[in-house]
């Protein structure tokens, strides 16, 4: 090997900078986008979200506009539908039991269901991450007490408590978000705590402590960013769980109030008029099932992407 001359060193530096390193996140993104099911899930979910956001522009009807002449009319393309219903061609998903356009109602249901999913997941995320990080980082007796509390809550049939809450407080929209979110933070706290316990031992935490960073600062700046991977995965799995919980409550008649609607309400109405108007069940149920599938595919894809050793 020839001795390295001063000029060569500059060359080598140039070569070194032109070869771009791949960060952990870039690697993860590459793996995620190679997963066909996850990409398909993201695309479909994006479409449904866009449809939900632009719902008023996509349909000439309002979500609470009633047309008594067309009660429980089938979609115009439905085989064997009557002349009156076929004449009005713009009701793609048919009409519900009081003559409202089902297409626009399904999209408004998507709005509520997705909003509940996001907000309640954020609530659970905040509680769970802070709680878990605190328990894991502080350790010792405090950790013991905090996690013991989680254990106790774990054995509660929580959906029953949400039902009690909804019964007692007159079906409040905000409360619905908070109640469901408060149910779902337990697993999050456990995941974060486990992750924190392992991160805590690392040298950079010691360095930060030596540098005089306070406990709170270390949790916020060093622990939380390092547990983000498993948390993201769990978030994508929490959103569908929350959507399900809301639909469950709405199905029982304890969720969203008329004329607002959610997928749970629509499915419940559809189940009641199954014999006369099956489209009232099929479309909302289909939308919800597809959405849940998308989240599950994305969650699985993210898990594979962020946690390669699990493959």
């Amino acid at each position: 090997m020839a001795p390295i001359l001063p000029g060569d060193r500059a060359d080598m530096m140039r070569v070194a900078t032109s070869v771009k390193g791949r960060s952990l996140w870039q690697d993860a993104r590459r793996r995620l986008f190679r997963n066909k099911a996850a990409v398909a899930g993201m695309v479909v979910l994006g479409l449904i979200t866009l449809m939900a956001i632009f719902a008023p522009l996509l349909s000439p009807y309002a979500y609470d506009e009633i047309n008594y002449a067309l009660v429980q009319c089938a979609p115009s393309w439905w085989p064997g539908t009557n002349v009156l219903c076929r004449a009005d061609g713009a009701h793609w998903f048919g009409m519900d039991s009081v003559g409202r356009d089902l297409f626009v109602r399904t999209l408004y249901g998507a709005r509520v269901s997705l909003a509940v999913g996001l907000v309640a997941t954020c609530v659970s995320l905040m509680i769970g991450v802070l709680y878990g990080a605190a328990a894991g980082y502080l350790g010792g007796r405090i950790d013991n007490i905090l996690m013991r509390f989680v254990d106790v809550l774990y054995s509660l049939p929580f959906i029953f408590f949400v039902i009690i809450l909804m019964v007692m407080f007159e079906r409040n929209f905000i409360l619905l978000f908070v109640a469901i979110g408060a149910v779902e933070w337990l697993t999050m706290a456990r995941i974060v705590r486990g992750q924190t316990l392992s991160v805590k031992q690392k040298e950079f935490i010691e360095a930060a402590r030596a540098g005089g960073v306070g406990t709170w600062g270390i949790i916020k700046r060093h622990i939380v960013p390092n547990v983000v991977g498993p948390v993201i995965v769990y978030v994508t799995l929490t959103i569908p769980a929350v959507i399900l919980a809301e639909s469950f409550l709405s199905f029982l008649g304890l969720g969203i109030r008329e004329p607002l609607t959610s997928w749970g309400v629509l499915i419940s109405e559809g189940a009641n008029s199954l014999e006369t108007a099956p489209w009232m069940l099929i479309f909302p149920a289909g939308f919800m099932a597809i959405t849940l599938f998308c989240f599950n595919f994305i969650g699985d894809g993210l898990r594979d992407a962020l946690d390669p050793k699990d493959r």
Partner: protein
Amino acid sequence: MLSYAIRRFLGAIPTLLVIITLAFFMMRVAPGGPFDGERRLPPEIEANIMAAYDLDKPLYQQYFLYLGRLAQFDLGPSFRTRDFTVTEMIAAGLPVSLRLGLSAIVVALFFGILLGIFAALRQNKAADYSVMTIAMIGITIPTFVTAPLLTLMFGVYGVSLFGLNLSLPVGGWNDGALRNMILPVTVLALPQIAVVARLVRGSMVEVLRSNYVRTARAKGLSSYRVVTRHALRAGLLPLVSYLGPAIAGLATGSLIVEQIFGLPGIGRYFVQGALNRDYTLVLGVVIFYAALIIVLNLIADILYRVLDPRVRYE
């Protein structure tokens, strides 16, 4: 072992107490009382009613009274269904819910284990992928969608297969006739089948790779014997710890199933109680279910330790 069981049992008591306390006070914090009707009652009558239900006493006294009665398995009178106590209503609904739940568990275990083993033996082949895809569908699609869909198929349209009429009754209990049980049990079992199949597949894949299974194969045992005698025992272990969550899932599922199929079980009482603001009934059912779940979790944990010699008791 015994000391572990006792320790766990003692640990369950505060949990139950937390549940009771939480449920009780949540109920009382809420605005409005159980007897706030459309019509205002004359004050004397209202006072009498309040006194009859101990509602005139301070809250902490009511709480301890409730605890005292609870210790004698008395959940108090139902506020809305006159002349019935909550205990009576739960006792009336329990046989229906229990039969439904147990049947669903048995069905779920049978088909779930079968599918799981099948998928594990054909790991990463088409059969495996299709079983796991179906399992994913089973987990994703909620009970309140499958129930109406199955009703539509078997009740309303009356699917017939090979000239065989497969139409089934879509509602009513009919004293637990088999025909009436098929649809509700199927609906309840479907998601559990999916979960069981996934669990069994995962653990069986591990076990089938292990050294002792290879030894069993090497000494010339048939594949059937290797699976049933050697692999299955270790492979089914994770199912024991799944028992607790499964019961909780069934309890939640039964709310929907009993509502849809009009079955007179506990779940339906609970939903009706919730809609009618029958506070004591709701409280009673929550406590009952919580106790059930806690006890079953406890049994599952202890069973797991008995069955798996690798888990040591500290």
